[in-house]
């Protein structure tokens, strides 16, 4: 492991060789919340993050990838120890973690990826119902990022068709917000009773999935099947009288997902659609999640907008942490405008169709030189406490991020 760390740290110096490439960044972000949450009085949070990724290709048919993340946080969201976390399955973000560590073999139309890697399925952006191998870090629900999984992925390409198979022996859950912090919303009446993390019941079995994709002249489409576990947890709560507290347990129900996605350019816009029927065990709902999305670039503008819907065919659970379903029955859109090669603005928003939850974000970003970029964002969230978006109405915030890329 020491050699691995040394290689990543020295990567920028040695990445000049043709077979070796490197990228990374150091980033500082400050977030200000104007309002106190009922369970969290902290109104300023500072994050520091460094990332280094190295790609080594000793021969045309093989490539190795390795990446490391280093984190610090002012609000106790990062583990205190200095162990190098490979699995990244803890409640808090690890101080030092392996972001990716994989080998890729290619030949004769086949590609085999093995190790810790990112696997993305689906075509839509606002919600991706078929993206089952892509857990996320939801420490900040609005501003989240993907987590890599340990898997073997094989892909065979024949003409316009690609057949893909994935097997993941080791489950990686999405990370949910810390119980004592503002992204875990507690009703004011219950704020006096502490929430205690009673742990997560992580499944020990493996996951698998297959996907067939076709790239046609006028349309692209895929069909996929997934058999594994929901990376978003079902929540069980239990009141403990002495001392009075609520014990929270996370479980990850086994599910099967049958999905499809397509992208069809028309003369006016690109239509994207994606849907998945998810059926679970006795502790999980059966539901269809679907998305219709339109995309268009015009001049310096890029528009993406659409509708995410859900049909629950069988309801079994009462409490889940499911941002994908939370963003369903909603209209979601994003527009970005490039002011010049170094500056851009973006606006995005989501509105639940019943009007009980609203989210809006405005962002200005400016690069300076070859390495620096500053981004300032303002996020407004409103609505009712019983709505997925509306429950975060006290979490409107402003954020400033400064990144040095290398």
């Amino acid at each position, binding site marked *: 492991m020491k050699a691995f760390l040394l290689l990543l740290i020295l990567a920028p110096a040695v990445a000049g060789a043709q077979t070796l490439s490197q*990228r990374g960044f150091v980033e500082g972000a400050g977030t200000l919340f104007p309002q106190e949450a009922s369970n969290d009085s902290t109104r300023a949070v500072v994050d520091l993050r460094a990332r280094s990724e190295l*790609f080594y290709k000793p021969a045309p048919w093989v*490539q190795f990838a390795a990446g490391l993340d280093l984190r610090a946080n002012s609000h106790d969201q990062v583990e205190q120890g200095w162990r190098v976390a490979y699995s990244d399955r803890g409640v808090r973000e690890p101080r030092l973690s392996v972001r990716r560590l994989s080998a890729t073999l*290619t030949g004769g139309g086949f590609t085999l990826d093995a190790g810790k890697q990112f696997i*993305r399925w689906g075509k839509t952006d606002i919600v991706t119902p078929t993206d089952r191998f892509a857990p996320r870090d939801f420490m900040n629900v609005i501003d989240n990022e993907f987590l890599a999984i340990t898997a073997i992925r094989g892909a065979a390409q024949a003409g316009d068709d690609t057949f893909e198979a994935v097997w993941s022996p080791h489950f990686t859950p999405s990370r949910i917000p810390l119980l004592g912090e503002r992204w875990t919303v507690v009703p004011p009446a219950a704020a006096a009773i502490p929430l205690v993390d009673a742990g997560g019941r992580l499944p020990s079995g493996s996951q698998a999935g297959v996907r067939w994709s076709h790239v046609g002249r006028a349309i692209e489409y895929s069909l996929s099947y997934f058999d594994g576990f929901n990376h978003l947890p079902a929540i069980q709560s239990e009141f403990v009288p002495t001392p009075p507290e609520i014990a929270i347990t996370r479980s990850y129900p086994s599910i099967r997902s049958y999905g499809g996605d397509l992208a069809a350019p028309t*003369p006016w816009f*690109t239509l994207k659609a994606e849907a998945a029927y998810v059926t679970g065990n006795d502790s999980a709902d059966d539901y269809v999640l679907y998305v219709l999305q339109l995309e268009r670039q015009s001049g310096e503008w890029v528009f993406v907008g659409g509708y995410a819907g859900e049909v629950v065919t069988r309801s079994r659970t009462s409490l889940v942490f499911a941002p994908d379903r939370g963003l369903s029955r909603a209209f979601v859109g994003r527009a970005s405008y490039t002011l010049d090669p170094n500056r851009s603005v973006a606006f995005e928003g989501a509105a639940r169709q019943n009007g009980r939850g609203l989210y809006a974000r405005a962002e200005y970003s400016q*690069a300076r030189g070859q390495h620096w970029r500053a981004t300032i964002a303002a996020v407004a969230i409103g609505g009712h406490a019983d709505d997925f978006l509306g429950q975060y109405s006290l979490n409107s915030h402003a954020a400033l991020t400064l990144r040095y*890329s290398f």
Partner: protein
Amino acid sequence: MNERRCSHTILFVAVVSSFLAGADVEVLRAAEDARAIVAEAQRRTDAKSQRYEGVLQVFDAKGKISDKRWTFERLGSHGQSRVVLRFVAPPEVKGVALLIVNHPDRASDQWMWTPAIERDRRIALQDRSTRFFGTDFSFEDLEERDVNQNDYALLGEESIDGTPGWKIQSTPKQTRSSQYTRSIVWIRTDSYAVARIENYVKDKLVRRLNYSDIQNIQGIWTARQLEMLDLTRGSRTRLTLEKVQYNLPLDDEAFTLQAIRRQ
């Protein structure tokens, strides 16, 4: 009187018809000449493959500059080729890749890989007129155009930078969708190298591409510097080609959607 008028009319029509017929022949000959010139220019740049490292400098109307670098690899040529273009600088776009599959009879297919979100996205036909990554090149400008995708007319001879050249109008055929209504192309008479392209939308000149520092590399006259001017915005992008190589062995499997996902 009526007979005389009629005979005069017939005579007039006959004279005009014969003049027009002669003009048609001239137009056809000019079109054939123009097409032959473009075909010869294309033949002289035929290569099994090409590789270069590109340095992009973007100047806006106020003279601000932004630098980018990419590697360009092409397998095949002229409507039968595939291209992978991958950014290597600045660091924040490192790894972003564009796969272009050129077709002889229609517009290319294009996909962009964005490593930050680990996703590829097809660039729709109607989006090809937009600027490519903040440069003054549009996605369509990155296509490789086959001679058969356009109709041509020879407009005459005109010097470019002191070198004699043919001035040719190129109009996209109906089967090939394009943001441009027509283009005017200057081809040097000494080397058949393209020296300038002016692109029009209806009658308005919107982009001008100047080719300079033309050198013979492995028998192919190659412009080492291309400068695209966006006349609507007043900005320009200079692309400098470094380490240009032709006919080098490139792996067919490096030009697929699976391949551009590798960093």
